[in-house]
């Protein structure tokens, strides 16, 4: 299996995850979307030095992984390309903020190191929450939920079509790469001199396809409005889940549970 086939296979696996059945899968997409947004906002709002307070937020994705039956390793495996980028965000903080903030044993730890770890944790937590949302919600239901939140139709349509066509474009790229490699034996990857024409070709193919696709939509009565599947209705259970989660996030945001527990142990 080459890299492209593997990518397509992985994309298919996301559909399989979303098609599973669990109490989380059975929730309304709108409830899951609102909860994820609330979670991300809460995580991002933590102070850059509040590492201990934020660490408790890990409970939410861990619980969701358990209830939905999605293995945590699947999440980290699928996010393996994005995770290093997210981790690299705060890499320079230790150089700018050198003032000691705390000591671990006898070792002083600077504010920069704490804020770097805090940024890394924020990134990982947000990615995990987003992954859980996508892994437990079919894309069309998610789009319907986004529209219910009055996100612009154009953006939602773009998301839906990108999801649908990322596989098709990957296939095209795979065909082009194979055609290249068959005429460049012994060469590893595509030579840098061919990158321009490669991307140009891909762009032209994408534009042709986009035109055909738009024609196809118009011929079937499209006039700027998509009708998304309504998905599971937002019921009492969903309201309780959303409110419960939001209340828990608020509690974890303003009460440092880790610190409280720590004090109990130290005392």
């Amino acid at each position, binding site marked *: 299996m080459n890299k492209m086939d593997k990518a397509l296979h992985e994309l298919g696996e996301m*559909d399989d995850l979303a098609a599973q059945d669990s109490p989380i899968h059975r929730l309304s997409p709108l409830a899951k979307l609102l909860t994820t947004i609330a979670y991300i906002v809460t995580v991002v709002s933590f102070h850059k030095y509040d590492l201990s307070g934020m660490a408790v937020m890990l409970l939410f994705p861990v619980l969701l992984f358990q209830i939905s039956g999605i293995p945590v390793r699947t999440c980290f495996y699928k996010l393996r390309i994005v995770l290093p980028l997210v981790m690299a965000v705060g890499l320079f903080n230790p150089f700018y903020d050198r003032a000691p903030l705390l000591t671990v044993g006898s070792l002083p730890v600077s504010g920069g190191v704490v804020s770097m770890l805090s940024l890394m944790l924020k990134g990982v937590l947000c990615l995990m929450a987003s992954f859980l949302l996508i892994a437990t919600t079919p*894309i*069309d239901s998610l789009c319907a939920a986004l529209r219910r939140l009055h996100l612009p139709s154009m953006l939602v349509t773009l998301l839906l079509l990108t999801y*649908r066509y990322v596989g098709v474009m990957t296939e095209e790229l795979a065909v082009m790469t194979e055609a290249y490699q068959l005429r460049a034996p012994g060469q590893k990857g595509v030579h840098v001199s061919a990158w321009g024409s490669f991307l140009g070709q891909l762009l032209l193919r994408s534009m042709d*396809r986009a035109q*055909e*696709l738009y*024609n196809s939509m118009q*011929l079937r*009565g499209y006039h700027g409005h998509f009708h998304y599947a309504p998905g599971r209705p937002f019921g009492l259970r969903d309201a309780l889940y959303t409110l419960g989660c939001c209340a828990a996030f608020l509690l974890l945001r303003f009460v440092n549970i880790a610190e409280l527990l720590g004090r109990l142990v130290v005392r």
Partner: protein
Amino acid sequence: MIEFQHVSFSYEKDRPVIEDLSFRIERGESVGLIGANGAGKSTVMKLLLGLLSGEGKILVDGIEVNRASLSAVRRRLGFVLQNSDNQMFMPTVYEDMIFAPLNYGLSREEAERRVDAVLEQLGLQELKHRHNHRISGGEKRMAAIATILAMEPEVILMDEPSSALDPYNRRLVINTIRALPQTKLITSHDLDMILDTCRRVILLDRGRIVADGPADEILRNKELLEAHRMELPFCLAGR
């Protein structure tokens, strides 16, 4: 049902792709539009669908194709594209099939009933909730036909419906096309398929009609076909 009256079209000045084309297709007819590459088959389809506009007059069910009538005309026409991936743009087969009925004002319940009826008609019930990017080429072509049938069009236009299909799926598509009662206009290089599905054939060469008549006659005429860069269908070639 469909009428072309002295239609001409060119992408560049003085290089006509379609020249003074006139023909008429009656309700219920199955017509194959054949010709070598560059003969103008796809352009004829696009003109009929209002994706291009040229000189002359095109009528669909008595309605002239123009900007003002596009919606009414397109509601009567169902176009099956050569590349099913370009046609199946929603995540699942079901969402794709329900797309047009919802756009044409049907309620979700009515549209769903129609989708189920079409899936049953074509024996594709198990495809209903499958993801478009995870079904095979043959299944995708059948689903694309189903998508069009869910519109309940009066005329079905097909661009190379048998291309890139294995023999089994090709036969499946042919049998499906034969069973459709609607007026059909099919462009293809697969002359065996045209022979199987169409009673009448229009042969185009460089944007002009060079023959229009019974499929059985035209597709057996070796001299005529070869004169216009075509060959006899394999089943008649005696090889």
